[in-house]
């Protein structure tokens, strides 16, 4: 996890396109400027970033599902519950399941666990839009490779 670069997942460990599920892992760094403010003397992974980690995980599931034809953009977060603290050094397991594929949008359910304990969960809606430019799509393809995600790209996106 490189928080400052908004890289909130380290690797995709499981992708099941039949069941529309994904699992990813991320280790919270022990050292980050974010913890200087959140909070001094009591470092906690900010809840908004946990939500972003769930959104990124579900986003990769959607991209895998549509073979890089569309980019998912976070549109709404519902029923977000931050149930326990996440702290530096913890290994997070992030799971997502695609609940609905609409026309131009998708809805997913996600949760994060640490050592088996539920940290947070949420229902997340995404807008799906064509990639604005080939460079953008290319950078996402590179990121997918870094995460260990093998996706067969659509022919013309």
């Amino acid at each position, binding site marked *: 996890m490189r928080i400052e670069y908004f890289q909130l997942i380290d690797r995709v460990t499981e992708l099941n396109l039949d069941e529309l599920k994904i699992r990813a892992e991320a280790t919270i760094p022990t050292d980050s400027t974010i913890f200087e403010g959140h909070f001094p003397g009591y470092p906690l992974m900010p809840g908004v970033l946990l939500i972003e980690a769930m959104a990124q995980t579900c986003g990769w599931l959607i991209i895998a599902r549509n073979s890089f034809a569309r980019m998912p953009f976070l*549109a*709404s977060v519902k029923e977000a519950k931050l149930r326990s603290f996440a702290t530096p050094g913890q290994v997070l397991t992030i799971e997502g399941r695609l609940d*609905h*594929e*609409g*026309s*131009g*949008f998708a809805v997913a359910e996600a949760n994060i666990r640490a050592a088996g304990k539920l940290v947070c969960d949420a229902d997340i*809606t995404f807008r799906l839009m064509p990639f604005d430019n080939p460079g953008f799509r290319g950078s996402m393809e590179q990121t997918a490779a870094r995460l260990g995600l093998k996706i067969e790209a659509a022919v013309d996106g």
Partner: protein
Amino acid sequence: MSTTFDTVANIIAETCDIQRDTIKPESHAIDDLGIDSLDFLDIAFAIDKAFGIKLPLEQWTQEVNDGKASTEQYFVLKNLCSRIDDLVAAKAK
């Protein structure tokens, strides 16, 4: 058994916190009820789930943007309900 309009109106009322009795078959979702595109995603999600269909929002939006259709054709509720009925019937075939 509730009508398509009743189901849609209830979804809109609950999703957008709009008084149910202000939602009429002649209401324009955007112009009269003030529903924005993000709220309409929630409504589409609920309609898709309730009726087991997939509202073709992207196609409708494209047709409106291309001047091939008016927003009234898709977003006046009685017209929206008629299209939902068509989609449900097409799925049942």
